[in-house]
């Protein structure tokens, strides 16, 4: 039962790149070893909206994790003890993704339904068949 999570954390700004990468890879490996996938992107240094523990800016890192809740719990625990990490936020995103998928499907099916009569009305057999042929592969990657 893998769920999708988005974990964003802020690291103190005076941290070097290699240490940051080491930290990220440690976290990622802890996720993958427990049977999940993790993908991270570093947003870079940004100004914080308010002071967090004596810092006015920080390095933002976003991690997309697909794992069980226990794994994420473990990652959060690690973040809490890691000294350079000053703030983190985990958001569960699988319900949101499900909803977005549903909406996309409804929109796509509506588009297909409105395109079909147009294709049929347009015309004689020859242009219609290649049109129908291009129609189906276009809707396939849903």
């Amino acid at each position, binding site marked *: 039962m893998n769920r999708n999570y988005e974990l964003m954390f802020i690291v103190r700004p005076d941290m070097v790149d290699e240490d940051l990468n080491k930290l990220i890879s440690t976290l990622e490996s802890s996720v993958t070893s427990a049977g999940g996938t993790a993908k991270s992107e570093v947003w870079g240094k940004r100004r914080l909206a*308010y002071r967090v523990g004596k810092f006015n800016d920080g390095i933002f890192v*976003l991690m997309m994790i697909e794992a069980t809740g226990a794994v994420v719990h473990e990652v959060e625990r690690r973040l809490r003890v890691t000294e350079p990490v000053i703030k983190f936020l985990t958001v569960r995103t699988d319900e949101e993704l499900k909803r*977005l998928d549903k909406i996309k499907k409804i929109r796509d099916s509506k588009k297909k339904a409105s395109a079909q009569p147009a294709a049929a009305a347009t015309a004689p057999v020859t242009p219609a068949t290649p049109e129908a042929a291009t129609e189906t592969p276009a809707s396939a990657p849903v």
Partner: protein
Amino acid sequence: MAEETKAPSAHTGASGGESRPERSGGDRPERSGPPRGARPGGGPGGPREGGRKFFRRKKVCKFCVEKIEAVNYKDVRLLAQFVAESGKITPRRLTGVCTPHQRRLSRAIKQARNIALLPFAGRAQ
């Protein structure tokens, strides 16, 4: 734009009262307490205002129009449009956002505040 039938009236009473009928016109079931008794708000113009229509230009929900489905805490620029200078979330009657989107928006703003992308109070730098 068709509903913009406001006559440029100079009554201070009228401009002060604008906020109230606006409220009852916008969210229909909710705040029906004060406006119902005091002013004939919501309906097409009260006789007190000299036949002036109460409906302001119907604000449309930005999310519904542009079909933005996902309101993420990460797009600060979008969220900052719905936050006042003081950092407070602007009410729905001023921005014209529909209820489900306002709920999602407010959730996203609170998440953004927690992760220091938006301030809790004070100017967003």
